[in-house]
């Protein structure tokens, strides 16, 4: 996935800088534009050092789409590390998601310009990125004075940043689309951190997991953790079928293994405690191979394999984000000393009881992970660091401009619950707007219904199941990730659907009717669909 993103970044760079113009040396100087037709390219640097790129069609109609890219790791990762190796910090601007040419072409065809910043720093950068975007909008308007409207959109952390613009600067934007939106840093870090803590506690206590050193030493620690996590996951992958626990398991893990507790049940419990989705790129928790495992596989095995796939993503994020946040806050920012993991799985233990191997096993595992077990030490956060973390921007969920949400229902990095939270908060906002309209009617005898400003596109997993099996009955994991799974795993058709909806909303001030939104596959418009909030919110 990361490599795909890098490829996409390169494409984006090619798109917006087809002819490289020299970036102004002085920050906050006017952008350097090449003056080309039909697409003029401009680049520059904001006052905080964030590079940006603009592409403006000759038929510019006064609307520009501002895209905010997602979380990029804040350290270089050596090439030898599986999955994420070879990544280098980049602040290359990304004016459309992944450099998607079809999306850019669509905007240009409408006379709409595109722009985006690479931001001044990578990692969790919402607070600075919001300021960067505000400045970028101002810079664009100065460069193109006929600018009338700004559409804001972004993915993952960029979705969070976009929602922040919606809340803090509605005067600057006409429509917004947070895609696969991240929840608050604390909520995201809690999900990832809980899972990583579980891996460390049961399967490899040598994983550091927190309290990383500064500088190169810290980088080495976090890269070392990534390798350990991937090694553990590899062992768990084998152990799910053989029952064997990783040889690196802690004394607590070994005691559970000795009690005959299947390792797949332990892995699943960790995922459920953290709120990791139980459907993943290749495991649907529905399908089974023909034969004896037709029922057993989806009932008892597939949920654990889904956690294995999704949890790998969550654990890597946990390591790199934890290190990043600790650098920003000056200390350990994750604290699970008071987390009640048993309460976390109150519902899930019923639903996944078979996969968790029954109540006796569940209780034994929860007991082993409880604070009462000295063999499962909790992470004690640094109060000052946590205070700094909590002082970072948190979205309230307020919707001020027509807004489109798009998310995958089984996104393992930014779970769909982040979007659900916004949906629920907006429901309350809309109800209050209706009450206000009614109150106004009573005094004016003129009822003006409030306009609905939010539509949510759920990218769903195929309902008939999507796990495929070889003729020998083994699950196949080399096929493309199923829709609705993986992080920000959207099709061009889905991006275009959002783009077209935004354009409609920016023109009319209203969202299109649902009946007009039918052409992007696997989109679910059910207003009653419900995803669980992230566990952090303790809903």
């Amino acid at each position, binding site marked *: 996935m990361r490599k795909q993103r890098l490829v996409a970044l390169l494409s984006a760079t090619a798109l917006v800088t087809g002819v490289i113009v020299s970036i102004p040396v002085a920050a906050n100087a006017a952008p350097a534009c090449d003056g080309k037709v039909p697409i003029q390219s401009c680049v520059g640097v904001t006052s905080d050092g964030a590079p940006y790129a603009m592409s403006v069609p000759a038929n510019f109609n006064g609307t520009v789409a501002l895209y905010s890219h997602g979380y990029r790791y804040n350290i270089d990762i050596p090439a030898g590390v599986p999955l994420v190796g070879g990544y280098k910090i980049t602040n290359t601007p990304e004016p459309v998601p992944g450099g998607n040419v079809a999306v850019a072409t669509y905007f240009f065809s409408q006379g709409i310009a595109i722009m985006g910043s690479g931001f001044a720093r990578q990692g969790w950068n919402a607070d600075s990125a919001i300021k960067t975007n505000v400045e970028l909008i101002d810079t664009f308007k100065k460069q193109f004075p006929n600018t009338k409207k700004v559409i804001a959109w972004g993915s993952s952390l960029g979705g969070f940043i976009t929602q922040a613009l919606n809340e803090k600067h509605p005067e600057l934007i006409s429509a917004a689309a947070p895609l696969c939106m991240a929840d608050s840093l604390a909520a995201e870090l809690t999900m990832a951190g809980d899972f990583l803590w579980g891996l460390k506690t049961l399967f490899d206590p040598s994983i550091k997991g927190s309290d990383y050193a500064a500088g190169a030493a810290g980088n080495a620690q976090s890269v070392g953790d990534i390798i350990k996590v991937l090694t553990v996951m590899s062992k768990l992958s084998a152990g799910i079928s053989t029952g064997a626990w990783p040889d690196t398991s802690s004394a607590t893990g070994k005691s559970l293994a000795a009690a005959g507790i299947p390792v797949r049940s332990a892995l699943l419990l960790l995922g459920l405690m953290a709120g990791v989705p139980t459907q993943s790129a290749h495991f649907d928790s529905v399908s089974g191979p023909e034969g004896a495992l037709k029922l057993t596989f989806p009932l008892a095995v597939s949920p654990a394999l889904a956690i294995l796939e999704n949890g790998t993503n969550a654990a890597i994020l946990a390591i790199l984000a934890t290190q990043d946040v600790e650098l920003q806050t000056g200390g350990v920012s994750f604290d699970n000393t008071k987390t009640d993991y048993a309460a976390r799985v109150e519902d899930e233990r019923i639903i996944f009881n*078979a996969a968790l191997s029954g109540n006796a096993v569940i209780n034994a595992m929860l007991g082993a992970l409880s604070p009462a077990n000295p063999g499962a030490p909790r992470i004690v956060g640094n109060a000052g660091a946590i205070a700094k973390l909590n002082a970072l921007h948190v979205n309230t969920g307020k919707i001020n401009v027509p807004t489109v949400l798009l998310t995958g229902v089984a996104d393992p990095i930014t779970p769909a619950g982040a979007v659900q939270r916004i949906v629920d908060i907006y429901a309350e906002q809309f109800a209050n707007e209706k*009450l206000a309209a009614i109150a106004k009617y009573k005094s004016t005898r003129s009822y003006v219904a409030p306009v609905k400003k939010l539509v949510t596109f759920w990218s769903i997993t195929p309902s008939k199941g999507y796990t495929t099996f070889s003729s020998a009955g083994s699950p196949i994991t080399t096929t493309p990730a199923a829709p609705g799974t993986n992080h920000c795993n959207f099709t061009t058709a889905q991006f275009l659907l959002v783009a077209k909806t935004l354009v409609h909303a920016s023109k009319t001030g209203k969202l299109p009717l649902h009946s007009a939104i039918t052409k992007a596959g696997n989109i679910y418009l059910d207003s009653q669909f*419900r995803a669980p909030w992230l566990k952090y919110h303790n809903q």
Partner: protein
Amino acid sequence: MKAMNRQKLISVSTVLAVASLVATAIPAHAAHVGVSRSQIKLGMTLPMTGAASLGYNKIPGAAKAYFDYLNANGGVNGRKITLIVKDDRYVPTEAVARTNELILKDKVMALLAPLGTANVKAVASSVNPARRGVPVLFINTGFSGFADIKKYPTTYTILPSYVMEAKIMGEYIKENFAGKKIGLLYQDDDFGIDALAGFKTAGVNFAVTVGYASGSQSAAAAAGWITKFKAAKADVVILFAVSSATSAMLGTAAVLKYAPQWMLGSVGGDATTIKLTGVPAGVLYNAIGFSSVPATTDLNDEYIKLFSDLYAKAVPGSPFDLNVLLGMNSAFMTAQALKAAGANPKRKSLMAAIDSKGATFASSALVPTGYSKTSHVGLTGYWVGKYSPTGDLAPIGGTYVTYTTDSGTGAVVKSTYKRPAMPAKGLPN
């Protein structure tokens, strides 16, 4: 969030009031979800295939047999009942997917008789029928938690809770097996939690309890269970388990010639299903069983007579058993609820009808239901029987003596419930 809901309710009702001042273009007879001028659509998910389907996969055919009969006699106020059935294979994630299809694609008015605690729970969490206002009628699980009307406001139980069953079993044990060593096989999930809670309330002390994780039951596992019961010298062994576990236990016991006094819970106690797995009928002989509906062989009972005739015509050659009876009974009660919901039934009026009149609905059951505006509790008791040499459950002494209780600490008492007579031709009045 609670505050929001209240606000929403207030605002919705007020907006409606305002809207009515100006509404002139609204059709006079707007169709309601799942209800047209000619039909009412209901949906059902349960295991139709796979290892967990045995016995339970007869429930849809049974319900359809009754609905076909009802439809042939005019339906409900002229509307035919269409039952759409989806196979969830007893997999919670699949139950969620299939239920979503029923609600969103098939647009059913209500869900009927979904089966399994985990599945009903998964659907409640992910599909959220409560939030959608979709009635979930007569669920096929006795987990007492589903009677929590605040948590599951649109869900109606029908089976007596497992707590009730365990309490009534406990009472029987105290009266008949005092001083005996009692063993318990239970499923180690919420099914079992309910059972353990009920036995605890009843004051039953076990010589040995053996829990098994759902899905782990097999002949090999049963051999291990038997070893434990033998070691504890259990005189009476209670099988508070699903059909497959009960059958595995009885089949293996027959092979190992292990023959304590068996006591079978209602969930796994259907003789037809047990015998289909190859368990000799003789193994069941003199086992004690519990049921809330009449013996399926009791053709003197007017409900059994009608239902068995209907089923024989609809599904020739398929034995009329407990699953069939419960399926037809749920369909019969659904028909009455739809009738009571008025000339143009809606989801809300359907639930209101059960709340206000459900306790008086005719039913084959020999124990009362607890439906009211504050309770969605279904049947509340059992009669005790013994299995015959042919494996059929019949009341001890030839007369149904029913016991009723609650899911709390209430006493187990002999029921004075007098079952309403079956309405003419078994059709809703």
